[in-house]
């Protein structure tokens, strides 16, 4: 069914084919009779041999042979020669079947079954593999079988690594060999085996893979291996705390739900109806074990013993990069409190790959609790009027810059040298796609390693230009390069207080909320969220976003503008369910309802806990609508929105609007019209 030319067959060919089919059907029918009647005579077994030689895919025939072997082994004397003879025959039949079709799952598995009875020698099997790998060095059945033999015979990883050396030196265009190499090498590096120290081995591997990439830049065999080497160079295994909110040395103002008079433009003000504020920890990789015993809070804010830490966004999984706890405060009890947080106070925070968070980190911030003066207003929030420029000299912003994730203990020198060396090498491949892409990634890596503020951000212009070049050079993957370009752009914006402050404003009408304006920037991806945890209003309008993935960490976000983007469904907004502070959401002029294929439904954690779908009042009264708009229902019912804009989407209309008002009964403004008061 693969690789057969489409030719009208000649009468002789058709007759031959028909005759063959008759023979095969007759064989099969005789075979099935033997199998059902459990007949294991020499004749019957010989019949199955014939069948398998014509059609190695006759799966049942292989299973019949296993039954036949077991039957014979049970009848004979336990003489090793007799046993050998029986099993040898099976190996012969497998080999002959493989010659027919060296990709037959059934044949390879039968051989494994025979071998696991303790038969055949390593030498034999490796010789057989040699034969098949010469025929097709990418045959994954052969590679899998090789791994099986290696495990069965305890062949060393070093020997197998040498084998991949030989295969690659013979022909570098062998992704299967590179893959096997990556598996063996990561195991040897993880064990700290003799002669496998990363600072020596990784640079050697870079040299080795250059042969694959530079000889034939269009051959993908070395690309993914190189990317893996870069990952090994850049990323440390031990988890690190990347950022937090509040951050070290900052001051925040906490109050109740209303407005403060004369609120400060110097500090971040956080208002809450619930009398609690989020404490956010953002790690560089998914970790588990964040709890009140591994993270301690030292403060006079009452009522905060036994704090519950939650992973965002996955409650089901016990690991996440982002962890949040809610600290309580009483706004009628105005005072100034120092809060000291110690992360990793006791062991227990562990990455999903099993590495411990082993450098306890302490940070301190000041919380000023104020009383509310006026009732909260329910005026409509504007995205254009009422903004003041952020005071760039504000000390507050310095303390909002993230923690430096560099650490001298992390054996830094070899990593930096490796990156520098690669940057030089890839400079010589100016016009190839893989050359430009790798160079862009290397420069991003270099940026990530820069600690000196004076030189931070110098590479971004070149990185962005490389992605622009790639969009033109490899237009089939335009959107991939666009997403990478957006990520790099946001890294650039957040690389220094100076560049970030150009996009920051204060919203006067709402306690001087911190607003980040990133509109009209052709952004197709969100990134650098760990540096934006302090943002309370976010304007991402007039961009090319199709998902809010990443925004769940922004626990302070109360207003979000996503109008004029490419959002296709509410399932794409699922991450917003975790932003409990969200009051104002603008998703007008998007593509919601326009496309039949939902590309975010499985990324949506609500899909599988749908047993509660439709069990509340709304669900009971409108089961049809809840099913029709299930993703909007899941997102909206978890939020306490006061203001929502949905006009300009295909889904918008009377039916959807009235459904929204049922799901969000406290909504005040819908598409600019006041609703509350019924």
């Amino acid at each position: 069914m693969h690789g057969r030319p489409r030719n009208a067959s000649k009468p002789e060919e058709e007759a031959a084919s028909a005759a063959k089919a008759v023979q095969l059907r007759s064989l099969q029918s005789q075979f099935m009779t033997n199998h059902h009647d459990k007949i294991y005579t020499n004749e019957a077994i010989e019949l199955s041999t014939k069948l398998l030689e014509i059609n190695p895919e006759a799966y049942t025939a292989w299973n019949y042979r296993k039954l036949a072997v077991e039957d014979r082994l049970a009848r004979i004397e336990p003489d090793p020669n007799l046993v050998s003879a029986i099993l040898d025959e099976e190996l012969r039949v497998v080999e002959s079947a493989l010659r027919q079709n060296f990709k037959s799952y059934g044949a390879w598995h039968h051989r494994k079954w025979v071998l696991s009875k303790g038969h055949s020698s390593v030498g034999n099997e490796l010789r057989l593999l040699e034969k098949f790998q010469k025929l097709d060095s990418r045959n994954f059945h052969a590679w899998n079988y090789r791994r099986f033999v290696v495990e069965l015979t305890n062949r060393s990883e070093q020997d197998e690594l040498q084998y991949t050396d030989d295969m690659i030196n013979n022909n570098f265009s062998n992704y299967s060999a590179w893959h096997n190499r990556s598996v063996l090498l990561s195991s040897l590096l993880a064990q700290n085996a003799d002669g496998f120290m990363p600072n020596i081995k990784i640079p050697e591997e870079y040299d080795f893979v250059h042969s694959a990439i530079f000889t034939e830049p269009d051959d993908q065999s070395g690309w993914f291996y190189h990317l893996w080497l870069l990952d090994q160079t850049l990323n440390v295994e031990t988890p690190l705390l990347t950022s937090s909110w509040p951050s070290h040395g900052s001051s925040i103002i906490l109050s109740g739900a209303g407005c403060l008079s004369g609120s400060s433009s110097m500090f971040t003000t956080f208002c809450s109806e619930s009398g609690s504020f989020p404490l956010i920890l953002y790690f560089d990789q998914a970790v588990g074990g964040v709890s009140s015993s591994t993270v301690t809070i030292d403060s006079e804010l009452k009522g905060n013993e036994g704090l519950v830490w939650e992973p965002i966004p996955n409650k089901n999984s016990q690991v996440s990069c982002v962890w949040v706890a809610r600290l309580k405060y009483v706004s009628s009890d105005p005072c100034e409190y120092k809060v000291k947080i110690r992360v990793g106070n006791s062991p227990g925070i562990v990455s999903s790959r099993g590495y411990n968070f082993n450098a306890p980190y302490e940070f301190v911030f000041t919380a000023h609790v104020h009383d509310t003066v006026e009732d909260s207003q329910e005026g409509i929030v504007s995205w254009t009027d009422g903004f003041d420029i952020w005071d760039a000299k504000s000390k507050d912003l310095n303390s909002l810059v993230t923690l430096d994730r560099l650490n001298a203990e992390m054996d830094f020198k070899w990593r930096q040298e490796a990156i520098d060396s690669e940057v030089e090498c890839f400079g010589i491949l100016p016009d190839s796609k893989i050359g430009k892409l790798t160079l862009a990634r290397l420069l991003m890596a270099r940026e990530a390693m820069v600690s000196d503020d004076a030189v931070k951000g110098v590479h971004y212009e070149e990185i962005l230009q490389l992605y622009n070049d790639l969009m033109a050079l490899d237009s089939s993957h335009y959107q991939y390069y666009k997403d990478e370009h957006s990520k790099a752009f946001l890294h650039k914006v957040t690389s220094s207080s100076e560049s970030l402050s150009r996009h920051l404003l204060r919203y006067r009408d709402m306690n001087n909320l911190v607003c980040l304006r990133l509109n009209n920037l052709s952004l197709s991806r969100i990134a650098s969220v760990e540096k934006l945890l302090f943002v309370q209003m976010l304007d991402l309008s007039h961009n090319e976003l199709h998902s809010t993935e990443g925004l769940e960490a922004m626990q302070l976000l109360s207003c979000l503008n996503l109008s004029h983007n490419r959002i296709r469904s509410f399932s794409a907004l699922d991450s917003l369910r975790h932003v409990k502070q969200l009051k104002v959401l603008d998703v007008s002029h998007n593509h919601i309802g326009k496309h039949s294929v939902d590309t975010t439904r499985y990324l949506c954690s609500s899909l599988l806990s749908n047993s509660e779908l439709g069990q509340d009042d709304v669900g009971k009264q409108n089961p049809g609508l809840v099913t029709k708009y299930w993703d909007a229902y899941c997102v909206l019912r978890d939020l306490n929105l006061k203001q929502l804009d949905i006009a300009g989407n295909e889904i918008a209309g009377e039916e959807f609007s009235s459904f929204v008002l049922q799901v969000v009964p406290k909504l005040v403004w819908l598409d600019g019209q006041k609703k509350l008061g019924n």
Partner: protein
Amino acid sequence: MFFYMQILDIAGLQNEDGSFSGDIWGKVDTRFSYIVICCLSILKCLDKINVKKAVDYIVSCKNLDGGFGCTPGAESHAGQIFCCVGALAITGNLHHVDKDLLGWWLCERQDYESGGLNGRSEKLPDVCYSLWVLSSLIMIDRVHWIEKAKLVKFILDCQDMDNGGISDRPNYAVDIFHTYFGVAGLSLLEYPGAKTIDPAYALPVHVTNRILFTK
């Protein structure tokens, strides 16, 4: 009674490490993990197996290029990736997938000349990968990284305009499987007139919604 007996058998085929054997002879492959999870989720009997262990086994088959193989350490292959990503999707575990890394591996399956998708690097494009690669990309929300129009053209080029049906590649023999994969691929590419299908089940969305949203 009938299907309860079948489910008991399936649950019995789960191994200690969470993997599934295809039958009593013990062959293990992540394809079987997908089949079990897909079937049991439709029958609403996922609790008959140890889902956490099943997921852990699938995650152990994740490779350094972001893809998945048939067993731990096996090379990434688009068919296996579909099975693993599908099983993780159905059980709500896509957070285990490095979507950017896998997405790049998958989008590089597209052949510049023909617009078709292959199953691994340096292999020929084939219509069946229109389903395996495409579904996987959709489930992890990276389908915008391939050029859809070119892929539509490739599938249409694989039609036998005289006798009907779709083949694995242009001017090769048609068969029922590639015809199905081609039509499913066109549906996932929003080709006009094709009914929308769900990428994890390859069933029409109105069917999967009915299954998922009723008790």
